[in-house]
């Protein structure tokens, strides 16, 4: 088993009176693709945001490189942001900027020369299989799949060691979803990046190394993605087959 790059220890998170995370213990292996699955509204995105310090837990620890980042303030989190890339659920591209400005924003804001920015942006654009003619379009002019690819390209500019993907294929058709899955797999293989993917798309298991299932605020399963269909863990068995019988209570109102 490779070394763990992120470790969550007994992480609890309460919003007002609702406890979303009820004691998460999870370790993310280095250089591997780990998928966190779970039902909608279970707190998967909240969990992902804890890994990068965008949300602080009510209690518990998030250890990165031996440091508990929950104790750091915004300024001290800076070096950790440098290690991470975060691909948001709806890409979170800045509406008022073009694709070029969105992808190159971290360079532009650090006063890198425009020729160099353009070169890096073109290189990352090619990595996510986008044509150069998209460079000067605005996010509103792009399809959902293209926006997600631009979001990934923007993240790649910072050369992250770890990329966190928040539901990268939600709202996409099966073909585009497959393209995005292959792209993520390709990135991980080529750049030796550690990937953590929040998803409820079972197709991702083909590409992933490990799977974690979040249910009732806790990790109910963590195991090898390749053997997941043989797993007898009742939670994972029910979830990946979409069964209504099992330990996961199917609340119609919740599901709606």
């Amino acid at each position, binding site marked *: 088993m490779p070394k763990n790059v992120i470790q969550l220890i007994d992480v609890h998170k309460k919003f007002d009176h609702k406890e979303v995370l009820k004691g998460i213990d999870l370790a993310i292996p280095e250089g591997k693709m780990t998928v966190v699955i779970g039902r909608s509204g279970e707190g998967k995105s909240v969990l992902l*945001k804890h890994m*990068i310090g*965008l949300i602080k837990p009510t209690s518990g620890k998030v250890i990165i490189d031996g440091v508990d980042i929950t104790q750091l303030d*915004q300024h001290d989190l*800076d070096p950790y*942001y*440098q290690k*991470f*890339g*975060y691909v*948001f*659920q*709806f890409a*979170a*591209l*800045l*509406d008022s900027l073009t694709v070029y400005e969105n992808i190159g*924003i*971290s360079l532009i*804001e650090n006063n890198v020369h425009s020729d160099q920015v353009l070169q890096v942006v073109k290189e990352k654009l090619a990595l996510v299989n986008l044509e150069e003619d998209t460079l000067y379009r605005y996010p509103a002019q792009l399809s959902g799949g293209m926006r997600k690819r631009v979001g990934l390209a*923007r*993240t790649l500019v*910072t050369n992250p060691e770890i990329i966190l993907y928040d539901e990268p294929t939600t709202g996409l058709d099966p073909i585009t979803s497959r393209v995005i899955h292959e792209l993520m797999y390709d990135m991980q293989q080529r750049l030796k990046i550690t990937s953590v993917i929040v998803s409820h798309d079972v197709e991702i298991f083909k590409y992933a190394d490990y799977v974690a299932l979040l249910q009732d605020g806790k990790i109910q399963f963590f195991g090898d993605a390749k053997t997941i269909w043989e797993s007898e863990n009742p939670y994972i068995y029910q979830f990946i087959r979409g069964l209504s019988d099992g330990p996961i209570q199917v609340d119609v109102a919740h599901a709606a």
Partner: protein
Amino acid sequence: MILQMVNTLGMFVLATCDQLGKFTLFFAHAAYIAATTRLKITKVIAQMEIIGVESLTIVVLTGTFSGMVFALQSYIGFKRVGGEQFIGSVVALAMIRELGPVLTGLMVTGRAGSAIAAELGAMEITEQVDALRTLRIDPFQYLVVPRIVAATIILPFLTIFSMICGIIGGYLVCAYVLELSPEDYINSIRTYVELSDINGGLVKAAVFGLILSWVRVYKGFYTYGGARGVGISTTQSVVTSSIMILISDYFLTKMIEQL
């Protein structure tokens, strides 16, 4: 029953103190970032264009018509005591010391303030602000400080337009509608209006710019709850900054008077 009332009152006081604390800390952090990081000049200029240039028409219109109506009302009053020759100074002093800065502040709040609260609110709920953080771009340096600096600088300039248009509006009414002596109008301004009046008006305008931008970026930044949340933030930012402008106007006038 009494216990419940005390409880409700206590909760209200606590919530208000919490909001006020957050509001003050937000500004303190923005001031700290402004003092310790490089100011993004291009963003300040872009914001000055959005706030200033795009609000100019409305400021000119409200200034002109306020001056016109003020001249008309003053005439009705002064005619009774035979003081029509003072209309010019009354209109000018009102526009310079009071109406110019306050009207400009309120108009910009409605015109540009609400738009920027909505823009920042939408950025917040679509995770664009979080995206900036993960890209190691400080949202205060990138979004907050340029907006506050731009509004604080541009409001006095807009106010100058409002003052001048108001005085011209008053002049037009006096000279062409009421058919009074234009010389009296101009001479009374020359005699009674001092440079300190203009300075005081411009200081007020700058403070109003600071207040309206502070409120709207704060409200935009703490937006949650989807499109409805953006609507609530926008409305709250207009109401809160308008009230704060009117309240601070009294205290600013008192302070400037004592200097």
